[in-house]
Every structure is written in structure tokens, then in C-alpha cells.
């Protein structure tokens, strides 16, 4: 659906070039987003996320490489089919009313029966009573909801969300998650791209996450793939006099946690190994209070990817 091949983007005209002040925002980015994917884009500030999104919408052109959306140049694709888009900074003329803004967006999309569709999307974002309100008088969260509403107008195949939770309260962050899920469920081939610093939110919404740093894709993390190795477990036992000793006997590599509970981090090799060792622990009279797998969070993987990138950069 979306394919970037060796995409480069430099900012600066011939004057900047002559002075050697060209800014390289993207440096050989290759990324494939197949139909039906929710792709997250994360990275530190200045990593190239916004440039990537502007390229996908056709607002800028790559300096090198190719960007294709459903086989088309981005501007040609957006000009003919449109993309649902919620920008990081929502800008709508402040003198317009919410209703007028939605009518303009519906007219730009050349929708049939726009009034019913506008009512529907405004109701979905809880703004059905705000159609008469001026854009300039809306709070940041309400403005964000108007932007979400206009992105839902028309039957788009691609939805691009740039920091979509900015300004939304926790209730509406959860609601946005539900809206995106509904939007995807309506057509399983739909693609959603979410650029965000909120890694917890991405972990809940995205299938894959591209980690960008210094204009390069450091890693594409598949959040739906099974873990590559058997996870570590957190084992908590009743604090009896010989419990710690028994745990160490059964799990020689157990690492005790600091804190009031008697808990350990243990690393079995597989499920059978885990069951065998736990059975031995129980046989020794230790009472197990909790046993939970430890998953590597997106945040840990993100820091790992960025850290590796910095390590490579430092090594050059």
C-alpha cells in the first residue's frame, strides 16, 4: 500500500547548498506498509517523522528515492482519493464555525449527501452540539476532535495521525483508540499511520512500529509477532524462612528483587522447564503467590534501537 525506497530529503536551496548548510531530514529510508497494517512511527525530536508524513501527503517531494501510495505518486494519490489526516498542529481559519469548516471539508471531498455524513462524524467525536461554535473559541482538545471528525469524512483507505492524542483527555484518548479500531474494522485493508511520542498508546494501537533516528529507520518492531525467546518471569513466593533458599535451588539464576515482597526474576528455557522447576518448588513446601511473564515493552525496545543507532554513530 505504502512503499518508500531509499527516500532522501534535504532542506535548503542552492544558497544553503553553496554554504554547506543543507539539512538532511531523511537519509535512505526504506519502508513497506502492506494493506491492513497499523504502523507506528516513533523517534526522537528531529528524527524525520514530520518530514516522512509530509512526503506521504505529497506536500513535499523527496530529494532522492521514491515514495508510492498504492503505486501512485503521493500528491496524485491524495488529489484523487484523499487521505484521512490529523496534523500535529490543527489549523483551521478561526473565524469559521465548526459546521462551516466541516461543510468546506465535505465540499473539498465532493461527498454525496454531506449533511448526514457531517452529522455522523461530529456525533462520533461528541461535537454534535458544537456545529455553531467558532473554531477560534474551541479548546485544544475540541479542535483536535474536529480534526479527527474531518479525517473520518469520506471513505479513505489511508489514515495518517500525527501526534493524535495531543490535547485529548484520557477519556478521549481511549475513545480515539476505539474510533481507529472501528475505522480499521470497516475495511480490513485500510492502513493507519500514527506518529507519536506516546509509546504506551502506540503499543495498544499499532501492529508494527518504525523507529526513526537521524533520518534513518533504525528498526521496524513487529508488535504482533511472538517473542523471539522465551520470556523471563517474575516469581513471588510466601516469605517463609527457607523460601529464598528453595527458589535459588530450583532457579539457580534467579535474581532477587528489592522491596518488601519476596520476589525474583527467573529465566526458564521453555514451558516444560518452567513447569518442572515450579513443581520442584512446590514439592519443597514453598507457596507461590504470583508468576507472571515479563514482556519487553515498546519503550525498552525503542531505547534499545535508538541506543544501538547512537552507538553506531559514535563508532564511525
Amino acid at each position, binding site marked *: 500500500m505504502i512503499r518508500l525506497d531509499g527516500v532522501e530529503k534535504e532542506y535548503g536551496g542552492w544558497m544553503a547548498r553553496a554554504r554547506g548548510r543543507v539539512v538532511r531530514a531523511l537519509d535512505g529510508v526504506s519502508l513497506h506498509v502492506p494493506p491492513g497494517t497499523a504502523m507506528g512511527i516513533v523517534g526522537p525530536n528531529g528524527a524525520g517523522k514530520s518530514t516522512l508524513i509530509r512526503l506521504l*501527503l505529497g*506536500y513535499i517531494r523527496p530529494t532522492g528515492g521514491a515514495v508510492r501510495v498504492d503505486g501512485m505518486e503521493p500528491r496524485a494519490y491524495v488529489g484523487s482519493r*484523499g487521505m484521512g*489526516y490529523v496534523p500535529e498542529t490543527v489549523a483551521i481559519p478561526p473565524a469559521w464555525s465548526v459546521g462551516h469548516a466541516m461543510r468546506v471539508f465535505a465540499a473539498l471531498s465532493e461527498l454525496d449527501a454531506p449533511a448526514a455524513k457531517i452529522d455522523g462524524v461530529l456525533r462520533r467525536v461528541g461535537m454534535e452540539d458544537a456545529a455553531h461554535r467558532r473554531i477560534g473559541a474551541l479548546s485544544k482538545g475540541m479542535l483536535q476532535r474536529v480534526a479527527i471528525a474531518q479525517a473520518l469524512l*469520506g471513505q479513505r483507505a489511508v489514515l495518517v495521525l500525527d501526534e493524535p492524542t495531543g490535547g485529548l483527555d484520557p477519556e478521549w484518548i481511549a475513545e480515539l483508540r476505539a474510533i481507529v479500531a472501528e475505522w480499521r474494522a470497516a475495511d480490513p485493508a485500510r492502513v493507519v499511520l500514527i506518529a507519536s511520542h506516546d509509546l504506551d498508546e502506540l503499543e495498544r494501537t499499532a501492529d508494527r512500529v518504525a523507529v526513526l533516528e537521524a533520518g534513518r529507520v533504525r528498526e521496524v518492531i513487529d508488535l504482533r509477532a511472538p517473542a523471539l525467546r522465551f520470556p523471563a518471569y517474575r516469581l513471588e513466593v510466601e516469605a517463609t524462612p527457607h523460601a529464598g533458599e528453595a527458589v535459588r535451588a530450583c532457579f539457580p539464576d534467579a535474581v532477587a528483587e528489592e522491596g518488601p515482597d519476596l520476589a525474583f526474576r527467573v529465566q526458564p528455557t521453555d514451558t516444560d522447564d518452567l513447569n518442572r522447576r515450579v513443581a520442584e518448588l512446590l514439592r519443597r513446601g514453598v507457596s507461590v503467590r504470583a508468576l507472571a511473564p515479563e514482556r519487553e515493552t515498546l519503550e525498552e525496545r525503542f531505547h534499545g534501537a535508538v541506543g544501538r543507532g547512537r552507538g553506531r554513530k559514535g563508532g564511525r
Partner: protein
Amino acid sequence: MIPLILRQLRVRLLVVLAICGAFYLLEPTFHVHADEAADAAQAIPPGEIAFTLANLAGASMLVLLAGFVATDRRRGYYRLYFSHPTRPLAYYALRWGVAYGLTLAVCAAFFVVSQLAAWGEIRAGADALVQPALFALIYGGVVAFASVAFPRGDSLVALALYLVTDLWQGFLSFFGETGVAPPLSPLVRQGISFVLPPHLALRDFYEAARAGHAAWGAVGFAGGYGLFWLAAAALLLWSREWP
């Protein structure tokens, strides 16, 4: 889309109507009373209102188009507009066309209403509407190009160009009437006259119309000037990246 654009222009249209009122008050031709009308019609030909109409058309385009691309670029409104299936060139062409149509409608209404109010009859012929149509095209083209090229001040650029052209014509007239040798060579003078908006071409058209024939060359040059800047604006809009 057109009704929505008209709705957005309603405050600017009020400004244009206020300018109409000011032009009516300032144009001496309209204040010749009925008892002196016969003489006045000889002294000030009704066709002279074509120049008032032309200035009104230019002013109307400046008001209606001010910032029409530049503001969208500078404030980032384009981000949401063009995520919908719309081509920027088509969108801004439509907005320009609505402004042009509105300007012609205002000029036509002013043409009728002002003459009826002043003299109780229509004295000027319909050919007085050719000059406002050309003037709107010329200054509409200049504003369009400036709006795409600069982040702000597009209408001020066009207004400055109008004033410079007026000064330039005064400069040429002074040397023409006094017989004093102008400081610039004929080639330079022609070059400057060629680059500036062709006000003189409209004067040529008017003089030819009074003499009973049509100056199509002058009309073509004036129209071509406006179309050139429109085409340049379209090319720049198509080729420029969005900020």
C-alpha cells in the same frame, strides 16, 4: 463549493461595496446635475466612467484575493484542505474565478446604479465594462502571483505596482508635454513600460472606442499581461513545496 467561498467573502464584499460608495462620491462625472448635464456630457464623456470602473475592479480584486494563497501557506490551513481529494491548483483557480466573477458583477451593478443615481439614465455604453474586466484580470494576476510567491503582503505588492505605474505614466506625460528630453533612453523607457501593468493599453482601447473602432491589439496585450502572471502563479504553485 462556490456558495461556501461566497460566504467566506461576505465581509470582504462589504468592503468592496464601501469602496463603490467612495468611488461614486469621488468621481466628478457623477456629480454633474441635470440642468448642466448636456454641457457636462460634452465636457466629460460618459465613457470616462470606464476608468472609475477599472480602478474599482482592480481594488475589488485586491480586497477579495488578499492573502488567498499566502495565508493558507503561512498559517498551515492547506494541511487539512489538501488531505482531501482536491488539487491545489483547481481549488485556488476556483477561488480566483469566484473573486473575478464577483468583481465583474459588482462593476456591472455599479455601472447601472451609479449612472441611474447620477443622471437618471444610462449614458455610457456597455464597452465601458471591457476596461474593468481587463483591469481585474491584470491585478488579479499580479495578486495571484504575489500570493504564491510571498508569505504576506500580496495585495500591497499589487497596490505598490499600481502606484508605481501611475507615477511612471506621470513621468512620461511630463516629458511628453514639456518637450524636455527624458533622462532614460527610449529602450529603457519601453522596457519599463512593458514590465509595468499596461494602463496605457486601456487608454488606447478607450480612445479607439471613442473614435469608433476597436483596439484589439491593446485588449490582447492587457489581457495577455494578466494571463501571464496567472500562468506564472499557477506554475509556481504547482512546482513549490508546501511549508
